[in-house]
């Protein structure tokens, strides 16, 4: 699915985000791709290829808690994790790198997020010329009992980022 010899996208200049993502992709450096984004580091995101799935994990940290009395993860962190997982999926699978711009994100919260690591994956349901639809799910110990699901629509046009 991945092509290590990705051609340079037109318009990329040395040191830009797109160029650095391209470099990380060439090395199959999933974590390097994520570490380029400050907010991803703030959330504590990691990524790994498991089989043919790119799984994004949000390592538990006390700063992610939204409800101290349960305790439970802040719903926004689950949304951000799933949005990120979808973006990494798009960056990873696309032949030409375009920074996806989120148009809409819809999150269903299914269960309280326990104070543990949370995993997420995005699956492209439709890849269009201008927009891409992605479904996401986030789970903890049991993948069959997701804590949240989501779907998002991204604008993926070259030269729009």
């Amino acid at each position, binding site marked *: 699915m991945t092509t290590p010899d990705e051609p340079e996208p037109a318009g990329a200049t040395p040191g*830009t*985000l797109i160029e650095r993502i391209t470099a990380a992709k060439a090395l199959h450096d999933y974590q390097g791709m994520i570490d*380029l*984004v*400050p*907010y*991803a*580091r*703030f*959330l504590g995101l990691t990524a790994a290829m498991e089989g043919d799935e790119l799984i994004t994990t949000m390592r538990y940290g*006390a*700063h*992610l*808690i*939204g*409800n*101290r*009395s349960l305790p439970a*993860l*802040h*719903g*926004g*962190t689950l*949304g*951000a*994790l799933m*949005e*990120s997982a979808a973006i990494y999926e798009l960056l990873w699978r696309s032949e030409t790198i375009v*920074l996806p*711009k*989120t*148009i*809409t*994100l*819809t*999150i*269903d*919260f299914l269960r*309280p997020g326990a104070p543990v690591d949370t995993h997420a994956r995005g699956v492209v349901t439709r890849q269009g010329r201008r927009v891409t639809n992605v479904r996401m799910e986030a789970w903890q110990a049991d993948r069959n009992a997701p804590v949240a699901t989501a779907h998002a629509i991204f604008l993926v046009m070259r030269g729009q*980022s």
Partner: protein
Amino acid sequence: MADPDDEVKRKIANAASRFVPHNEALGIRIVDIVDGEAVFELPYDAKLVGNPDTGALHGGAITAMLDGCSGFAVFASMTERVPIATLDLRIDYLKAAEPGRSVFGRARCYKLTRNVAFTRAVAYQDGIDDVVAHAVGTFMLSTKQGKA
């Protein structure tokens, strides 16, 4: 302000805010809580950047603020506090927030029933008419003794 319920609602919301470590981590400031409405400020912070080329905030930070702000709007519409759980949240991103400046969130609970609360919210910078993101949410109200 003359409504004594406002003070009750403000107290409920401010008490609730102490139970939200993630709001503190984001640097969120509660600007105002009035009848059924909450206003949050998300100050610009380099750690929340999504695109290091432009310095634009990551959408996730705005999502988290609008989620929290919407929840507080629900608290601000209660006269007796019960726990709530977000059922769903949809966010439309209209444009990137301008780097270096705060993003504000204003949420309103426009319908509160026995079981469910309905909210809408906007994120903006210059003014409420200059919208960065728009969100609608639903929340489940817990029964008083039971859980959500």
